[in-house]
């Protein structure tokens, strides 16, 4: 049986790579992809905990299903926003979208 810690470390690494992508990228679509990585890391955690700590209730799996659903909705909306943005400003670089400040 694979130890729980392996999954946790893997998921942490995946999460932090995603975090790096969110922080370092300037293309909005790339940022969205990094967010998907982070969500997957969370899902791995959920399923691993569920499987190792209380498999008969499989709550983690149920949760993961909902997370995937929400992620799908989020991607759909976010990409719609990106497309709209591109049409308005011919750019999807987040550092060029900075008018909502003082």
């Amino acid at each position, binding site marked *: 049986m694979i130890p729980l*810690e392996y999954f946790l470390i893997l998921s*942490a690494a995946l999460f932090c790579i995603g975090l790096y992508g969110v922080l*370092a990228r300037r*293309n909005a679509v790339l940022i*969205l*992809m990094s967010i998907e990585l982070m969500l997957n890391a969370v899902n791995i955690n959920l399923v691993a905990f569920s499987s190792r700590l209380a498999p008969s209730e499989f709550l983690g799996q149920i949760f993961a299903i909902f997370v995937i659903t929400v*992620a*799908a909705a989020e991607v759909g909306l976010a990409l719609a926003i990106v497309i709209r943005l591109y*049409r308005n400003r011919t750019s*999807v670089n987040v550092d060029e979208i900075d008018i909502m400040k003082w």
Partner: protein
Amino acid sequence: MNITIAIFFVIGIIALVGALGVVASRNVVYSALFLLLSLIMVAGLYILLYADFLAIVQILIYGGAIVIVIFFALMLTRTREMPLRLDNPKKPWAIVASLAAFALLATTTALTHWKILVTTPERVSYQVLGRTLFTQWAVPFEIASILLLVALVGAIVIARPGGRE
């Protein structure tokens, strides 16, 4: 080291490589392909965790739907700006922040004494999962479907041509 753990390492390393490819590639299309690779490896992890249903869902939704949508988005937003600069100026700070977060998570994982209750993990049958989802979790399920509907309508409204351009 038994065979499952070896498989785990193979899958995990491929997943991490894919993830690194997503965030480091200089070509957005390669990034998307790396993402697909990484997500499919995560599905493999689900199988190692005896979550077959979730693995199928992962491949169907992520591999089949989300990545495709991302490809479309990339296609529709091709910029002609050359040379393509994909990283923002705060990159060093991003490295610091993500390494710090990883250090924190890894330390926490290592320091915590996990009470493992299960020695032989068991597979959850599709029937049981489906029945639970439609009985005990029926209301959240319906709410999730409404959420999807709202997101669908919202995406159409936002992306539709017209209005104030």
